[in-house]
């Protein structure tokens, strides 16, 4: 295999992205689909490859190195699968949209950039592609509905600042290690090395969308075109963010499970799980609820990798894959619902399962999977993360378990509100989505089952080789050995179910289910009623949940305020100060110049 | 040396007058006087050709430009002049003071030339230098005069067409 082939996964999607930009509306989808298919074929071809491509680059010691091996092949393959499915979905979803050429272009260029970032073995080259993804992220959000520009700017600023941190981290680690080639770097986390790690970690987890760098995702959920949510926060950003986190944790830095760095990662992970999911619980919008789950699930991955024990890392990586699968499926169902009913407001939805049985089935599979119900795939990855977390401390295990409980509860609510109950008047004419949209959903949903039933397959073939000798010969596939963990999980899930049924019953007044559909989406509404009618422990429990949600809300808004108001206002205050100095008088300008000249002369003649 | 000093003092006073004169016309004339004194200083410094240019161009042409430009504008009314001159006294009286202080400071500091001065042996003819060694400057001047003539066409002539 010639090493130049490694350039193709970057060049082909990029070129076809540019091509798609200038294609007429009729053929755009076709171009994008062909490009995605070629990308997938390439990814399959490169899957087991182990090639290095080196090119001298500029005149100052950098080398442009691309390296394909086990891990990058895995990520590229996964990304290629999602890309082609989502492109297929888009051919219908974006058919009437004028901006579809931009969407395809940005999507394909994102794929090119992702492939580049994953293949790059040089930190600067990787940064180049990494920043390219930031750019397309901006474009993808900005082409959404009219107000989307603000959200795009917010995302750009937040991710941009984190990327600057990463840039600094790259400079620092390049300085410390004396090389910028990723596979040659091996640093300790003492002193500046620790700072470098934290800076790089900020870049990685902000890309993945973890707290506290998440606040653009829920906004984007409403503003950006929906397939964007399925592919970007749903799949690609998780893949690349967690990929880089794994690379720095396993390859670039010498970490051991008892270091402070591990503790930092686990704390970030568990906080993200709990806070984001409590936010999700009180959402009233299909897409916004999902977007908070997209944040929450990152917490499991960071927690898993942060444990730095093999079980946890494998769990984290497996969860990354699983999450990409079911989260994009969930977003796609959301898209189908939006296309058919014209809304994603849970108040206006309900009873859709009759009208859209296939969509509902896909949703149900993905939802039970994300809730971690055995034997779906989410269950196995979560169990591995639990396993790792338990090894490091009970508190992290409990946080993860609590997250699981709330996840299950919120998905019961979502499913109930959107698909069950009585259909509202506006949606009576809704029908099943077209086949091009169903096909990706079905394929992805079936992967939930396949990776659940045959979970040893992805773990042993895809993930365990990445760890190499760290495994020490263990095998983590299959059903968990520790039955207590399983029992705890199942108990938690049952508790969530009981909680839900109970809530529905209590909220349901004379008309029962109908009333519930009007009120259930507003979970706080249930809370209010529950406070009056229920026996104490339940009310107390709900109150606690409510308080946690409120705190999470204010934390979330607080971060938002810092990004939106503080920086901007401060910058404009400075700007106005400078502008008021420019009073238009040439004498003033001349006076500044002469004063400056005086200073320069004094400085130089010292 | 004494003559030089007297000339320099005259030059400075003329310049001061140009700055402080009440009417613009007088200021332009004061500037012409400054130029004339500079011409004499140039003669004294063994630079006759440059002095001739200074005399004809700066004392003649530039003064003509100034005077014609000033005559195209409406002079201030008497009341305005009075108001201005009151104001002006407040703004200008410390200029001579600053100048004298600066001169005294420089004199007392005894700023010295602290580099060996080069002595150029070949004292060449001005025309030779201008036309042979510094030919490039001549071309530059030609282009500049071209550009300036376009400027004058644009700024002066076309404005009559606007009729404003």
């Amino acid at each position, binding site marked *: 295999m010639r090493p130049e082939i490694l350039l193709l996964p970057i060049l082909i999607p990029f070129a076809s992205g540019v091509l798609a930009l200038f294609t007429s509306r009729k053929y755009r989808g076709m171009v994008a689909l062909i490009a995605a298919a070629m990308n997938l074929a390439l990814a399959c071809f490169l899957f087991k490859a182990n090639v290095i491509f080196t090119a001298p680059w500029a005149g100052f010691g950098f080398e442009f190195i691309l390296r394909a091996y086990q891990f990058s092949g895995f990520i590229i393959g996964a990304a290629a699968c999602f890309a082609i499915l989502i492109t297929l979905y888009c051919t219908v979803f974006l058919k009437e949209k004028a901006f579809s050429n931009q969407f395809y272009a940005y999507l394909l260029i994102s794929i090119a950039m992702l492939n580049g970032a994953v293949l790059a073995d040089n930190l600067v080259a990787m940064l180049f592609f990494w920043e390219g993804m930031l750019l397309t992220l901006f474009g993808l959000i900005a082409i959404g509905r009219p107000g989307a520009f603000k959200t795009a700017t917010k995302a750009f600023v937040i991710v941009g600042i984190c990327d600057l941190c990463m840039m600094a981290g790259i400079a620092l680690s390049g300085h410390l290690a004396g090389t910028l080639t990723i596979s040659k770097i091996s640093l300790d986390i003492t002193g500046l090395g620790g700072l470098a790690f934290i800076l790089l970690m900020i870049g990685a987890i902000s890309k993945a969308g973890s707290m506290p760098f998440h606040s653009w995702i829920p906004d984007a959920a409403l503003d950006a075109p929906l397939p964007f949510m399925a592919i970007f926060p749903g799949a690609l950003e998780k893949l690349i963010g967690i990929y880089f986190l794994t690379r720095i944790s396993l390859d670039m830095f010498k970490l051991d499970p008892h270091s402070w760095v591990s503790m930092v990662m686990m704390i970030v992970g568990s906080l993200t799980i709990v806070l984001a999911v409590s936010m999700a619980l009180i959402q009233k919008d299909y897409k916004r609820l999902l977007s908070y789950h997209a944040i929450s699930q990152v917490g499991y991955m960071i927690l898993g990798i942060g444990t730095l024990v093999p079980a946890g890392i494998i769990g984290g990586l497996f969860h990354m894959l699983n999450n990409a699968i079911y989260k994009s499926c969930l977003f796609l169902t959301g898209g189908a619902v939006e296309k058919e009913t014209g809304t994603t407001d849970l108040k206006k939805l309900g009873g859709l399962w009759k009208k859209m049985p296939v969509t509902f089935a896909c949703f149900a599979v993905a939802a039970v999977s994300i809730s971690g119900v055995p034997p779906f795939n989410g269950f196995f990855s979560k169990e591995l993360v639990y396993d790792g977390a338990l090894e490091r401390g009970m508190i992290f295990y409990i946080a993860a378990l609590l997250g699981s409980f709330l996840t299950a509860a919120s998905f019961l609510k979502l499913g109930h509100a959107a698909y069950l109950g009585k259909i509202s008047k506006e949606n009576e004419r809704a029908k099943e989505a077209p086949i091009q949209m169903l096909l990706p959903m079905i394929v992805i949903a079936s992967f939930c089952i396949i990776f659940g039933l045959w979970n040893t397959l992805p773990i042993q073939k895809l993930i365990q080789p990445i760890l190499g000798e760290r495994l020490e010969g263990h095998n983590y596939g299959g059903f968990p050995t520790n039955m207590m963990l399983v029992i705890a999980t199942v108990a938690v899930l049952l508790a969530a179910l009981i909680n839900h049924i109970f809530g529905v019953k209590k909220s349901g007044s004379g008309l029962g289910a109908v009333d519930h559909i009007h009120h259930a989406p507003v979970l706080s509404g249930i809370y209010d009623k529950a406070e009056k009618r229920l026996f104490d422990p339940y009310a107390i429990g709900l109150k606690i949940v409510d308080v946690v949600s409120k705190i999470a809300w204010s934390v979330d808004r607080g971060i938002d305020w810092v990004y939106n108001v503080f920086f901007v206002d401060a910058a404009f205050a400075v700007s106005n100060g400078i502008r008021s100095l420019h009073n*238009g008088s040439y004498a003033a300008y001349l006076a500044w110049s002469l004063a400056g000249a005086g200073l320069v002369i004094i400085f130089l003649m010292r | 040396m004494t003559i030089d000093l007297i000339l320099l003092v005259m030059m400075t006073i003329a310049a001061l007058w140009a700055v402080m004169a009440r009417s613009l016309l007088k200021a332009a004339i004061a500037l012409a006087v400054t130029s004339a004194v500079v011409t004499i200083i*140039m003669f004294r410094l063994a630079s006759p050709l440059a002095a001739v240019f200074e005399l004809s161009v*700066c004392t003649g042409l530039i003064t003509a430009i100034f005077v014609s*430009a000033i005559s195209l504008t409406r002079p201030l009314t008497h009341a305005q002049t009075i108001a201005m001159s009151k104001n002006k006294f407040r703004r*200008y009286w410390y200029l001579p003071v600053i100048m004298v202080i600066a001169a005294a400071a420089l004199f007392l500091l005894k700023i010295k030339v602290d580099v060996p001065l080069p002595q150029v042996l070949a004292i060449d003819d001005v025309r030779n230098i201008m036309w042979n060694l510094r030919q490039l400057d001549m071309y530059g001047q030609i282009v500049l005069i071209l550009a300036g003539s376009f400027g004058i066409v644009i*700024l002066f002539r076309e404005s009559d067409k606007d009729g404003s």
Partner: protein
Amino acid sequence: MEANNIQLFSIFGIFIVMLFIAGLYCILMTRNMMRALIGLEILTKAVTVLLILAGYVTGNMAFAQSIVITLIIIEVVVIAITAGVILSIYRHTNSLDRSTIRDLKG
């Protein structure tokens, strides 16, 4: 000869600096744009004397003269253009006061 020249330079230097101060002060303080132009002329005079002086002190009179002649030609063109600009402003505002050209700011 050389010591004498250095002394000559020092004395001339003082007056040149005074001329600079007068010119800059004029541009900074006057309200009349035409007078600011006169200030500019005074500065140019100072530079002319400085160049001639530098030529004289180093015994390089021919060279200095040639560049001063160039300088004078350039000076005329610049002054003419500037006067034209000031007159055009005068046509718009009917005033030579510098406060009339403070529209562009911020």
